[in-house]
């Protein structure tokens, strides 16, 4: 028997999930995938994040190599245009033919554009693919106002995207309320109130009649109630329609209102053809969420692997998400349409929270729920709903905050069959199995089961289940920094601050044991520096520092040091440039320009450092802290002073920022940059904090970095004035210094921050923790006590003693040997050293 040919048409999230599932079942089939888009499958759920700084490539679910490694043939950018069922072949637009034994249609859906006159204008767009995003971005460039048509889930997602692009955003909805499918009237009203508070204008019950050219703006929308709305661009996001054309033309059964009809095996009217995802119609219904699509994909994969009883039984459409930063949750019968059902409603207009639960008439079973503004109860309610767990005697206690002790549905109370992650269909039982098979951390369980790697909505629930189970097994999760302190860096910072501890000795006497080590000593030295800002070479601190901090220079492979004076913003006078050259020449140092717009002088012996620095300090240089876990450089482009395109003085701002934060010790190095316009020549989006000039002020980007695992910074706030910009950076840096782990860059810190960017905005912009005044005061103290560590050192004979090569001799280290290369020195290789020593004898 020859190998069975499986052909998959469509490479969206569901099509990809099908291939992944089938490959995982090792069926030895010959699998071919044909995708319309030029790139392999990507995550459409998080599409709008591209506008808050995420790269399109970050959304990829697979690469061409992924398929190659799986032995799957994949063709992109050439859509299938015809199915020839009699020959069991499909034909692509490019004329290629592919034969199949089993065909899987995963063609997805297209955005519905209402038949409105003028909707074909080139400033009317849709929101579905990465290419759509490109068009939206391009059109937004010369727009100030944008309208989204559609107030559903996708429409609001899209509204968020426009808002992130800096547009004045309007949402136009045909129905009387937002998210009419998922929310009842009360929930819908609360959502509207919250979204409007964010500056998004909402227009409901609006029926667009036609779109014409506007007078003051590019377009004008005319509604049936004789009102109009001017706008520069329109994005249609008013629902989806199944892409069933291929099936229609090859005479497979399709629904009256579209959708390829499938049975519970996901088979179409041709038993060799399956349809899955948003193109499929099951029980008269299109499932427009990713989780049910994944279920269908698995059902087909399992059948092809020989598991006959695999079947699709419909799916729960409960959903929890953040729309424009607002928490929204919807479970089951959100509208209370079940006969005999009763409802409990809680509404707090001050906190802008709305919650409703729908129960059976006897109050014993949860039938549905709506949550707006606070989704904390979602996971618990969902478990009650999915597992039909009997409700407590007073069901309202589940949603009313003042009701005292809220009955907790702990992880232990969940049955083994409880679905924790609905995207990947991971039950509590699967998690227990993963732990049984050797996983012992949340991260391991995630990669083993894939739980919480879809929409991420179950993260908190998953964490609870894993931690509960681990602690039931007696596993203690140890987060100690090292064997000397049973605390995390964050806890140590707190202990030092609250107890006003000023030395390592007091710290270890009070809170640790032993002598310390090369992990805890520099970490605590850094905390001491952030808190009290003493000179790092003061007696109680000197033995704690890594060698770079001890010698205020960077140790190189041969034990010599490199010197990096501060050149704030990369701006330097010719006089100072000459001094650097003269010093380098006098001491025979190797010179190189750094990536941070500074000059690095290599090959200085430890005993030469003080004399070199005396010359540099005399010429007006300060230490550059290239050796410390501290602020390094603030890179800049020339900005509006010289550049034809610059809109703000980026050099001036970079110098101000660098001078403000120089000397700040932190959990890891900090880098920054300021660009004078959106061309972004200073590469600010690859920095821990980056600033990009706009016509109206500055955009602030946070938590990017280059290095081993590059991450683009997230757009944190837009159009800030100078004062607000600095205030936010003050707060951000101090919050990071306080709460990050040792050697944790801001990017990793952010990724581990529960609540992510939104949480950071709450803390820094809205002051949700009430600590902003304290953070600013602490930063002011650090800024106010700045000293150039080298200037202080060269004037203190006691500190200089440490720089002697030998305590009993003026000789130099004979192990340091240089050779010449390209007109400068470099350390000799071991065999060169042997040769040089031999020839000198």
């Amino acid at each position, binding site marked *: 028997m020859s190998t069975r040919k499986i052909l998959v048409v469509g490479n969206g999230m569901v099509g990809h999930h099908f291939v992944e599932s089938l490959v995982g079942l090792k069926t030895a089939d010959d699998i071919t995938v044909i995708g319309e888009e030029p790139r392999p499958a990507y995550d459409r759920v998080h599409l709008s994040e591209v506008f808050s700084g995420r790269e399109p490539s970050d959304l990829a679910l697979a690469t061409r190599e992924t398929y190659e490694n799986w032995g799957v043939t994949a063709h992109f950018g050439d859509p299938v245009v015809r199915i020839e069922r009699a020959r069991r072949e499909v034909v692509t637009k490019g004329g290629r033919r592919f034969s199949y034994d089993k065909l899987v249609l995963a063609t997805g859906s297209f955005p519905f554009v209402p038949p409105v006159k003028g909707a074909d204008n080139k400033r009317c767009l849709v929101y579905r693919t990465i290419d759509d995003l490109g068009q939206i971005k391009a059109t937004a460039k010369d727009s100030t106002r944008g309208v989204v048509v559609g107030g559903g889930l996708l429409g609001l997602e899209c509204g968020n995207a426009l808002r992130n692009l800096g547009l004045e955003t309007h949402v136009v909805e045909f129905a009387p309320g937002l998210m009419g499918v998922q929310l009842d009237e009360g929930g819908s009203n609360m959502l509207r109130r919250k979204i409007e508070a964010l500056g998004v204008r909402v227009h409901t019950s609006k029926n667009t009649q036609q779109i014409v050219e506007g007078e003051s703006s590019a377009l004008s929308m005319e509604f049936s109630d004789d009102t109009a709305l001017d706008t520069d661009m329109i994005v249609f996001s008013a629902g989806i329609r199944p892409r069933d054309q291929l099936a229609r033309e090859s005479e497979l059964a399709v629904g009256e209102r579209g959708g390829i009809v499938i049975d519970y095996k996901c088979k179409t009217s041709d038993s060799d053809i399956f349809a899955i995802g948003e193109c499929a119609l099951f029980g008269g219904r299109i499932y427009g969420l990713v989780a049910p699509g994944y279920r269908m994909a698995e059902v087909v994969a399992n059948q092809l692997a020989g598991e006959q009883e695999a079947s699709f039984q419909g799916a729960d459409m409960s959903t929890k998400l953040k729309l424009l930063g607002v928490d929204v949750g919807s479970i089951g019968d959100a509208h209370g349409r079940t006969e005999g059902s009763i409802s409990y409603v809680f509404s707090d207009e001050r906190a802008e929270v709305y919650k409703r639960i729908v129960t059976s008439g006897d109050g014993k079973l949860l039938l549905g729920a709506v949550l707006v503004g606070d989704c904390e109860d979602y996971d618990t309610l969902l478990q009650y709903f999915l597992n039909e767990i009997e409700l407590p005697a007073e069901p309202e206690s589940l949603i009313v905050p003042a009701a005292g002790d809220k009955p907790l549905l702990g992880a232990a109370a969940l049955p083994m069959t409880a679905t924790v992650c609905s995207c990947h269909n991971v039950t509590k039982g699967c998690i227990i199995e993963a732990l049984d098979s050797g996983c012992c951390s949340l991260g391991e369980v995630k990669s083993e089961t894939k739980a919480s790697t879809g929409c991420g909505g179950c993260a908190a629930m998953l964490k609870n289940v894993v931690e509960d189970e681990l602690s039931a097994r007696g596993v203690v999760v140890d987060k100690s920094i090292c064997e000397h302190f049973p605390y995390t860096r964050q806890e140590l910072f707190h202990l030092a601050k609250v107890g006003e501890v000023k030395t390592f000795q007091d710290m270890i006497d009070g809170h640790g044991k*032993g002598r310390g080590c090369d992990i805890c*000593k520099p970490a605590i030295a850094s905390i001491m520096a952030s808190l009290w800002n003493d000179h790092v070479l003061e007696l109680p601190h000197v033995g704690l520092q890594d060698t770079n901090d001890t010698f205020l220079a960077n*140790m190189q492979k041969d034990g010599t040091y490199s010197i990096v004076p501060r050149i704030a913003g990369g701006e330097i006078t010719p006089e100072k440039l000459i001094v650097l050259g003269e010093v380098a020449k006098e001491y025979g140092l190797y010179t190189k320009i750094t990536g941070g717009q500074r000059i690095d002088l290599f090959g200085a012996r430890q005993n030469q450092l003080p004399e070199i620095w005396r010359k540099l300090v005399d010429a007006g240089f300060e230490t550059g802290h290239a050796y410390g876990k501290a602020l390094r450089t603030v890179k800049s482009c020339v900005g509006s002073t010289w550049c034809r395109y610059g809109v703000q003085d980026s050099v001036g701002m970079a110098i101000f920022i660098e001078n403000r934060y120089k000397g700040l010790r932190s959990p890891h190095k900090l880098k920054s940059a300021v660009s004078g316009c959106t061309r972004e020549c200073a590469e600010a989006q690859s920095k821990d904090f980056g600033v990009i000039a706009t016509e109206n002020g500055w955009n602030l980007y946070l938590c990017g970095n280059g290095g081993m695992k590059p991450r683009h910074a997230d757009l944190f706030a837009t159009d800030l004035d100078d004062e607000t910009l600095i205030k936010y950076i003050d707060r951000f840096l101090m919050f990071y210094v306080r709460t990050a782990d040792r050697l944790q860059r801001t990017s990793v810190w952010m990724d581990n921050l529960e609540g992510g960017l939104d949480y950071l905005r709450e803390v820094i912009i809205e002051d949700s923790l009430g600590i902003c005044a304290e953070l600013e005061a602490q930063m002011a103290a650090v800024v106010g006590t700045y000293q150039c560590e080298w200037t202080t050192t060269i004037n203190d004979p006691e500190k200089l003693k440490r720089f002697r090569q030998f305590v*009993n001799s003026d000789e130099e280290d004979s192990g*340091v040997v240089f050779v010449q290369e390209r007109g400068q020195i470099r350390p000799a290789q071991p065999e060169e050293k042997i040769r040089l020593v031999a020839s000198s004898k």
Partner: protein
Amino acid sequence: MEAVKQDDWQTVCTRDDLVLNSGVCALVGGEQVAIFYLPDTDRQVFALGNRDPIGKANVMSRGIVGDLQGQVVVASPLYKQHFNLETGACLEEEGVFLPVYDIQLDGDAVNVKVAG
């Protein structure tokens, strides 16, 4: 300062030249010796070869001292391997040792035994 005390002991410096809970380097009979000062131990002073056998540079005196699982150690400033201050043994790589020198405090004088 290179006054020979008795036999082959050599006074290399005074207590004042040492750095609290850290190291300095001395040249003893042509060898680079890293001297560590931990006044709250019984011995107070420790002496090891200054050359890092893994990083192949003379840097051990510039490492951070501390203790790991009860052993008093210094961490190489280059690649952070730990060496036992009493035996010179590397904790991470079996069979790698730093030379150990006899050292004592005599009042304020720091004496190291010259390799014979």
